[in-house]
């Protein structure tokens, strides 16, 4: 390493910084021995270093440190979980005397079979049946009513009564009975059976004639 007057300060600086190799350090020592006027410079460079560096305690730890913060959400989850566990453990158990509580009203609505046994249905003879039924004169008529239990409340129309006529009836002259039979009185109305015949609507003819009212507002149309 060439050391001279022009770079002696840089070499001394590198020496104190620890940037010189062993060979460079030896060259610098030789140069200082030969030029003792630079020994003073060497000592002054050494004094520029802050060797005394005590690390004081500045305190005020409370100002710097952060306290561990737990979120309210976390505590809410914990409290909810504990509440659920406590409710499961300490919930009062009911005595089970009846295995299944009976709710008669609900059962009556949902089961037509049960309701047919309890409900009484009044059969009113329909007007149409009164007119159309033709009965033979002076003959015994046996009326057989077939009625199922579930018919009373079921939406299906009840079966009409079957009239059993005797074999001897062959005449076509069949006078109309003056008074309706009791069996006829018991015939269901059309409205009761749910089979209401609606008259077909007549199609009305529309006379489409142009008028001034239907013209569009846009004059350019």
């Amino acid at each position, binding site marked *: 390493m060439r050391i001279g007057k022009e770079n002696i*300060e*840089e070499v001394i*600086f590198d020496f104190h*910084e620890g940037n010189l190799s062993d060979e460079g350090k030896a060259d610098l020592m030789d140069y200082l021995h030969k030029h003792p006027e630079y020994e*003073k*410079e060497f*000592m*002054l*460079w050494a*004094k*520029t*270093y*802050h060797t*005394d*560096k005590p*690390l*004081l*305690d*500045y305190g*005020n*730890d409370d*100002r*710097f*440190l*952060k*306290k*561990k*913060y737990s979120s309210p959400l976390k505590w809410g989850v914990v409290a909810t979980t504990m509440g659920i566990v406590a409710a499961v453990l300490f919930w009062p158990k009911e005595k089970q005397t009846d295995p299944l509580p009976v709710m008669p009203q609900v059962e009556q609505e949902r089961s037509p079979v049960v309701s047919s046994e309890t409900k009484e249905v009044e059969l009113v003879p329909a007007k149409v049946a009164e007119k159309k039924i033709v009965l033979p004169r002076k003959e015994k008529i046996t009326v057989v009513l077939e009625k199922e239990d579930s018919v009373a409340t079921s939406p299906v129309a009840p079966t009409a009564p079957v009239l059993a006529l005797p074999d001897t009836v062959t005449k076509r002259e069949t006078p109309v009975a003056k008074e309706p039979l009791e069996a006829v009185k018991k015939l269901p109305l059309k409205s009761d059976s749910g089979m209401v015949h609606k008259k077909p609507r007549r199609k009305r003819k529309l006379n489409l004639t142009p008028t001034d009212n239907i013209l569009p507002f846009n004059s350019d149309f």
Partner: protein
Amino acid sequence: MTVSDYNDIVRLYKNRLCRYAEKMLRNRHMAVDVAQESFMKLWEHRQRVDPLKVHAWLYTTAYHHCLTLLKKERRYVDEKALEHFSFEQPQPDLKKILDEALDLLNEQQRSILLLRDYEGYSYEEIGQILEISGSQVKSSLFRARQRIKEYLKDLEYVI
């Protein structure tokens, strides 16, 4: 970074950062404020700060904060006034003289000298903190020491 990690960093670097800021500002209370501000910013930006470079990030933040305060309060010490003040002191020891000599340097040189002498950082680390190159750090450090040396040379009684 958790609260526990943050507190560990505070315990490790609090006094160092306060000392660095105190040497820069020449004011203990302001130094503590600067250090606290740096740690608060560290917590705010904890997601972005590299855990391996926390110390450099802290010193960079403190350095910029010191520069802001120094520019704001115009706390520059006139060189002539300092020399006059130093000669008036009866038998000052070397430590005090060196502390006073820091005021002869500009902010960057002072910061480089403090980071080098007190914290023992390399040129590259100092350059990373101050956002300059390593060669710039070395040349600035050379000029800083040269100036202090000249200041000590004037004080013949020290030697």
